[in-house]
């Protein structure tokens, strides 16, 4: 807040002050043009070109002569596709609602109850996002399958028979526990940042505790909650590993799409399914924007006081049990990965028959270079996402212009689409012609950038919505340029939102696989590819060892990065 104070106090008449308005202000135009260029060159053009091919026969490029609805035909001829569409909608809605319900109490407890180890809680809550494809889902089979560890002991000790994990139960369970984090992080940040004056005023005026919660606290949590819920929904619609392993005969669109490419090499068919997925998500986005418009709350004031913390014994016990219980449950797959990495032999028995460091010795030489590459690529892409995501998010929330939904959709599109479609779009566009980028690190960074900018964008839109525009106006009235106001007023106020998004972007990029697999080259192999290679060779324990290294390195990095920035994790997410 000191930055803000300084900006407001900037003396007006001194012409030598940097950031003082001199002549017309070009910066917003330059920033806007650059952003537009990036959006068109890397998102709109390549992706629309690829999606248009969903109207062409398999293996062909769209033209007026060959346009057809054949790829969509199965949606009205095949019960398999119709059922998958229905399952997708049910799973998307149920997972989003349950993730939100599970996350809200945790967010409230961590933000408002006096608890120890908050930085650790927040760091650990990010870890469910690192779930190597397939092994993360398979962990639930190892625990709760017909011959699973929990299934065995629950039956032997307590006579409890665990219901089958396959189908809706398992898929929803696994998805909720790996995605609730998005809602938790966003809401926790907002609740911790609420001006305590608001609640105190309500109390002074005689509102009961329940009424304060309902009329002051909850409404403030809604915009970030919706931002998180939207990400959960898109992740749930796009996930293929969990339904493929745990779905049994319950199919969803993302698995149909994935196997169009894997089973039948039909990218156009996959693009057609993707387009249906995009339509569903688009409806969700529009509903959300409508819903959000009705409730605007400006909350960030000019106080430096922290939100009030509950210190009562009862609520502290409830908070500890709930938060650590949920974390323990959500981190089970990662625990299984860690455990599996030490299993040298595990031949279909209840427990491994031999333990040791063998898997680590085996993968060591295959890990160092990919790990360096992943860290470098993820860092550069995260920085790019922060810059452009902040600009676009700010403009989308603050400025009035026609076709705002188009900007929203453009940014969300690569995020909604399966990674392999985005990867192919970039590969086709930049493999030949005037600009050739394939085989370089640049194309991977671009791929990561377009796939992840939505996180920052969403988080910034939510954060800017909570900043009173009067603060920026005050700065402008005082003579500051747009760039100066951005740098000194707006960005500091929304910094927690940006950083929260950045940490999510970085973490999920470390394990990004589906775009990488299209764009990587031998010199730029990533850690996720190293895991994937072991899975392709059926070396599950070796894959688990690389997965475990990835989890530990990411955890250490996220934790220490926040130390370098000079804040603890809990403050970052405020």
């Amino acid at each position: 807040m000191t930055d803000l104070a300084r900006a407001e106090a900037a003396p007006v008449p001194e012409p030598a002050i940097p950031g003082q308005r001199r002549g017309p202000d070009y910066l917003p135009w330059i920033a806007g043009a650059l952003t537009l260029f990036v959006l068109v060159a890397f998102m709109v053009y390549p992706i629309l070109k690829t999606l248009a091919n969903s109207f062409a026969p398999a293996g062909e490029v769209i033209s007026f002569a060959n346009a057809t609805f054949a790829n969509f035909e199965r949606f009205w001829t095949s019960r398999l596709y119709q059922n998958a569409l229905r399952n997708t909608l049910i799973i998307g809605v149920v997972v989003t609602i349950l993730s939100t319900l599970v996350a809200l109490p945790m967010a409230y407890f961590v933000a408002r109850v006096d608890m120890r180890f908050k930085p650790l809680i927040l760091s650990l809550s990010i870890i469910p996002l690192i779930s190597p494809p397939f092994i993360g889902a398979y962990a639930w089979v190892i625990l709760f399958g017909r011959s699973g560890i929990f299934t065995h002991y629950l039956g032997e000790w307590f006579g409890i028979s665990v219901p089958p994990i396959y189908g809706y139960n398992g898929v929803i369970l696994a998805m909720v526990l790996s995605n609730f984090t998005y809602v938790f992080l966003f809401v926790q940040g907002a609740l911790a940042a609420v001006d305590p004056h608001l609640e105190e005023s309500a109390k002074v005026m005689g509102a009961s505790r329940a009424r304060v919660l309902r009329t002051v606290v909850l409404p403030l949590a809604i915009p970030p909650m919706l931002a998180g819920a939207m990400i959960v929904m898109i992740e749930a619609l796009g996930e293929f590993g969990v339904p493929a392993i745990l779905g049994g005969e319950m199919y969803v669109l993302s698995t149909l799409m994935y196997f169009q490419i894997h089973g039948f090499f039909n990218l156009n068919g996959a693009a057609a399914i993707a387009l249906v997925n995009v339509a569903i998500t688009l409806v969700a986005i529009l509903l959300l924007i409508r819903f959000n418009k009705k409730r605007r709350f400006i909350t960030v004031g000019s106080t430096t006081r922290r939100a009030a913390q509950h210190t009562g014994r009862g609520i502290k016990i409830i908070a500890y049990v709930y938060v650590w219980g949920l974390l323990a449950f959500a981190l089970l797959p990662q625990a299984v990965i860690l455990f599996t990495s030490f299993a040298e032999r595990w031949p279909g028995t209840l427990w491994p028959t031999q333990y040791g460091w063998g898997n680590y010795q085996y993968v060591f030489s295959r890990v160092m270079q990919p790990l360096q590459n992943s860290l470098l690529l993820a860092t550069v892409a995260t920085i790019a996402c922060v810059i452009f995501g902040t600009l676009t998010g700010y403009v989308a929330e603050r400025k009035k212009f026609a076709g705002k939904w188009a900007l929203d959709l453009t940014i969300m599109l690569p995020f909604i689409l399966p990674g392999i479609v985005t990867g192919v779009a970039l590969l086709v566009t930049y493999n030949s012609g005037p600009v050739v980028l394939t085989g370089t690190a640049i194309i991977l960074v671009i791929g990561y950038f377009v796939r992840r900018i939505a996180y920052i964008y969403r988080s910034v839109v939510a954060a800017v919505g909570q900043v009173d525009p009067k603060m920026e106006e005050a700065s402008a009235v005082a003579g500051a340029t747009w760039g100066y106001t951005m740098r000194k007023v707006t960005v500091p106020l929304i910094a927690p939102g940006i950083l929260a998004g950045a940490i999510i972007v970085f973490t999920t990029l470390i394990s990004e696989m589906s775009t990488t697999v299209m764009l990587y080259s031998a010199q730029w192999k990533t850690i996720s590819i190293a895991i994937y290679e072991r899975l392709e060779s059926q070396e599950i324990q070796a894959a688990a060892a690389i997965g475990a290294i990835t989890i530990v390195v990411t955890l250490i990095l996220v934790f220490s990065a926040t130390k370098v920035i000079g804040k603890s994790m809990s403050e970052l997410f405020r």
Partner: protein
Amino acid sequence: MATRTAFLAAGFAVAAFGAVQAQEGQVVVYNPAGNAGELLIDAFSEKYPGITVSAINAGVGELFTRIAAERANPRGDVIICASSEAFLANPGLFASYESSELENFSPDVIGEDNTYYGCSMPLQAFIVNTRLLPEDEHPQSWDDLADPRYEGKIILANPSLSGSAYAQLAQILQLHGWDVAEGVMNNARFVTSSQAVFQDVGRGEIEIGVTGEANIKNMLDDGFPVAAIYPSDGTGLRFDASAIIDGGPNRANAELFLDFLNSKEAHEIVASTNRRSVRADVAAPDGLAATADIVTFPYDAALAAQTRDENIRRWDDLFAQ
């Protein structure tokens, strides 16, 4: 970093000399064959130390999608041991080349105009969990899989989603027709992932599955309680193949690599990873039945591809009932 600089320097050095001599330079290999491919690359590098091999490892689906997307400016030179169905579905991506090993291959496993050369035979077999199912109850034929006593005990990958699973359905249809196929459908749980099939049987989640024999052999070697059963009414002769990508950046080295892949030496390496070589002069992997002892039938992959849409539509309708 140091290796990357050296790599670049080597590239410039080669360019500076102008004419690239054979047995120098680079070759880019697309490898969907996991550790078999890695061993082949290692062996090639040992034989031709002057050639830098860089590999892209991924699934067949991803690699063919990549090759198709790169068509205007191909980046890869060679693809190793990809399923022949993949080649049938993607004509026109591969170069015709008369390999020095041509005479050692049966014409059945060579593509039109010598565009691809057979590598191994991923024969489909039944995998049975011996802990869940005693030996006298093991199914012995495709016909058996339709027996009502196996209801709820079979796991298969969905033929409308997975290429190898469609090959299984097509085999049943070519051998017995829809009656048996419907019987199997009534008994089986159809999952989306073909990897889940053998892993679930191995871990004791379900009794019976159908998968490539190498997957079963690998599990046996690791000590899993499974058995491999070749159907007595015959398993289809399928194969996977290697090819030169048409228009790739290093054609001379690509030819060298393909000749090596086709050699007896390379096929023995393939056999060492539990894959059955298509070359008659290479023995079946240790512990797998000799090819001559397995009942096979001439599976018609081209017919299977032609009738696919029709078969899948019928299958979908039955499945959704």
